[in-house]
């Protein structure tokens, strides 16, 4: 049980408000020898695992630290380039920390506005007349409950899939 976060989206699809309640930390630290058996790629100024998923390191995880020194963007805190460091055999063994990337505010705005067309198409593809848009969306790791007010503002809660009573929470308390 637990609520992960709340999003409020305006009538036109823009994110008005967002609150992260509990963000589970998924991080793994491991010591690697040369050559590195993971393929990393640089996307949105972050180093992502693009191939070679193993143990708890999944494709899409970002490189957070090398030997305990945090990595920001492509560079380490002391100014060294992370890729150069990983390619140099003399630096090994290296202790690398990977984790699921935290959503940036930009990604949140992007996702909030992405929900708007999904909501509209779901209602359009309905086999029954006069259907609303998506009210609950379930995945294996979370449940999304959406409530649209008469004015078109959408309230969304992301919670654990076992969480019950989200509809009342949205309708009565917000």
């Amino acid at each position, binding site marked *: 049980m637990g609520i992960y*976060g709340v999003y409020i989206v305006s009538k036109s699809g823009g994110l008005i408000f967002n609150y992260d309640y509990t*963000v589970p930390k*998924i991080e793994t630290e491991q010591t690697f020898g040369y050559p590195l058996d993971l393929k990393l790629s640089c996307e949105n100024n972050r180093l992502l695992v693009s191939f070679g998923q193993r143990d708890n390191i999944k494709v*899409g995880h970002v490189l957070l630290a090398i030997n305990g020194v945090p990595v920001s963007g492509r560079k380490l805190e002391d100014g060294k380039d992370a890729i150069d460091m990983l390619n140099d055999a003399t630096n090994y063994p290296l202790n690398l920390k990977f984790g699921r990337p935290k959503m940036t505010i930009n990604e949140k705005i992007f996702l909030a506005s992405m929900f708007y067309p999904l909501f509209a198409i779901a209602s359009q593809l309905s086999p029954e007349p006069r259907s*609303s848009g998506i009210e609950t969306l*379930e995945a294996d*790791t979370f449940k999304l409950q959406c409530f649209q007010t008469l004015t078109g503002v959408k309230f969304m809660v992301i919670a654990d899939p076992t969480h019950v009573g989200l509809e009342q929470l949205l309708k009565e308390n917000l």
Partner: protein
Amino acid sequence: MTIYNIYIFDRMGTLLYHTNWNRLKQSGMSSEEEAKLMYGMLFSIKSFVSKISPLDPKRGFLCYKTSKYALHYYESLTGVKFILNTDVTVKNVRDLLHQLYKEIYVEYVVKNTECEMGQPIESELFKFKLDQFIKQHMKSLQ
């Protein structure tokens, strides 16, 4: 329980099969366009789910519900996608879809030499068995 319709897509997004049972509203477009819209929506939902998920997703998107219907999604490891629209009260559709994949799709499409991969399913036997399977479940769950 009511089952409205089913869509089967292959991993490239080709519509393999589509049929309606108790559909009350037509979407007002050709079935080809509707399939494209459906596949497009699912593609976006999948990417939306994998990004917004707080933990690492394994199977990802399972189903969504509106006030009138529920859409259930099942994807096999080979990327064949089954979409079943039912009313909102139905439960355990995932098991039903898995059974459908195992007992109907694999038996009458994969093992059928007449069915080419990536082409719409024309087999009358498959159509008959699928219809029988769905009708039997509609009755047993009432």
